[in-house]
């Protein structure tokens, strides 16, 4: 099998960066996220390929909302370069699959989503040791075989990364970098079991009759409206569109929004369909567990567990699903 020696990781990233914008998981300042390898500063940044669930999932790379001082959005011009997302995990690949499904469907085919997506190569890092909040296997995701990845790398410890090309795009890239890979037999690790299992069975149907259930009030009461659950969610895609006047030019740009904001749905005149915290809370979970499923046949969740780990109020999706399962209607 083809193996990438860990000592050659930076050489590989430099090589890939010659033709592409390569996004890698880094610890930068206070947080982790996917940043361009070209911006890597060894005194400040740390490459964290072994980190599960970096703080920000790489959901902004293809749909490219407003970047600092670069408000060029709807044209897709800035976002249409060749990109590689390196070291992405199964759950976050599923997040991109959701974007493909949602932004890539016929409604906006004429928009530049497909153009950007076609120029993106996904090099996924298989997960063998799930975190306590991980539950991707419960939503049908295989952490060892990310569906949608062009290349899968497998960390075998000091032997390096096993490198498997899964698509033509991946194969082509592998050929170009073949001199950095060595051919040898290594032992693939044995995956650990998931600590967290979430049972989605029947949840969507049951939620149909739970509009007035006290559960929404109970959890929303403690919600601090920090929106971390939505911003760090690889599958949350709600957008805000804004107009700006900047340096004598007019721009329209999109940026991520959150359904937890009180004025997210505020209309001129003061009416809002999502005035109550409990309504907003219910709308968020029903969107994930019922509405998306009604439209696309599966829940809008990748099981990454970020929202569980990050919520300061402990309102976790796994607890809520368990309460729905137990609710007597």
């Amino acid at each position: 099998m083809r193996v990438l020696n860990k000592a050659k990781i930076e050489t590989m990233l430099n090589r890939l960066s010659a033709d592409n914008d390569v996004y890698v998981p880094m610890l930068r300042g206070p947080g982790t996220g996917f940043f361009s390898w070209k911006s890597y500063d060894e005194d400040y940044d740390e490459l964290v390929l072994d980190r599960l669930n970096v703080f920000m999932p790489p959901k902004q790379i293809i749909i490219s909302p407003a970047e600092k001082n670069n408000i060029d959005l709807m044209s897709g011009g800035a976002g249409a370069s060749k990109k590689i997302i390196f070291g992405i995990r199964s759950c976050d690949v599923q997040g991109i699959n959701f974007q493909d499904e949602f932004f890539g469907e016929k409604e906006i085919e004429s928009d530049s989503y497909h153009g950007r997506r076609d120029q993106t190569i996904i090099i996924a890092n298989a997960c063998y040791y799930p975190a306590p909040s991980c539950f991707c296997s419960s939503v049908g995701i295989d952490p060892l075989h990310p569906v949608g990845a062009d290349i899968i790398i497998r960390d075998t410890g000091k032997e390096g990364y096993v490198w498997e090309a899964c698509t033509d795009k991946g194969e082509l890239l592998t050929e170009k970098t073949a001199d950095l890979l060595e051919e040898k037999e290594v032992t693939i690790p044995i995956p650990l079991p998931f600590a967290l299992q979430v049972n989605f069975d029947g949840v969507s149907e049951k939620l149909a009759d739970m509009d007035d259930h006290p559960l929404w009030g109970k959890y929303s009461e403690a919600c601090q409206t920090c929106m971390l659950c939505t911003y760090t969610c690889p599958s949350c895609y709600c957008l805000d569109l804004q107009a700006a006047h900047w340096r004598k030019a007019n721009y329209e740009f999109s940026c991520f929004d959150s359904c937890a904001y009180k004025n997210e749905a505020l209309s001129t005149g003061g009416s809002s369909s999502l005035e109550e915290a409990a309504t907003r809370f219910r709308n968020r979970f029903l969107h994930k567990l019922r509405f998306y499923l009604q439209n696309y046949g599966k829940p809008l969740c990748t099981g990454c567990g970020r929202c569980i780990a990050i919520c300061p109020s402990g309102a976790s999706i796994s607890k809520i699903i368990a309460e729905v399962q137990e609710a007597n209607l």
Partner: protein
Amino acid sequence: MPDKDHKCTCSEQPLVPKVVEVIDIIDRTPDVKSFFVRNVDGNGLPFQVDPGQCGMVSMPIGEAMISCTWQEEQEYLEFAIKRVGLLTDELHQIEIGQQIGVRGPYGNGFPVEACKGKDMVFIAGGIGLAPLRSFIKYCFKHREDYGKITILYGSRSQADLCFKEELFDLWPKESNTEVFVTIDNAEPDWNGHVGFVPAYLEELNPSSAGAVAVVCGPPIMIKFVLQSLEKMGYNDDQVITTLEMRMKCGIGKCGRCNIGSEFICLDGPVYYLKQLRDLPPEW
């Protein structure tokens, strides 16, 4: 969802507005103006609309979804806009000849075909007459297809009555048509009815047999009108309303206007009450 399609026809990229010229502006009330727009080259429209469909109107300050008036001769687009917020404030300051952005059309529009052969009861309050006006105009254009037409319109004061020419001169002259106008509080030079729309509706009590009621107005008016209609014997499949939700993209992608699995910009804004009853109570 993949089988649903937005109806925007004005641009290759659905989120990019088309620049149009404002060819006329009419003051309807102290805070409502009608803007008439057409393509900047003077030829034709950025898009064609069906009654009840909307367009996204934009200025450099932002965008808003506005109901677009259906025209018999589609030579220009009309948006009747009330001054209520940032964008509408800016819009009210523009002059004839200036350019604004529009994109559309969005939404499903009124079920003009399904209503054929029915008696029509239009109930509107304030600027809520603007979307219904498209349907009313369509009914008069195809007068023989519809039964008796009853129009009930109310506003806060005489000065706030929109589309006065149509209300008092044009529409009452149409055959088999009755127009009722009310204002909330008595005024010295007002000889008409005084009172709120729901109470006046119950007083008039238009028969529910073979009729369809179409309602649009402020949320509080809609709420009580729906109760009155229920009392008067209207079934949920005889009542149509058009919803106002915050919309950002118009193509079902931004997630702003959802009610349940429906996006108001794609599946709405026009709903039978029967459909709304199946949705979560956010409307």
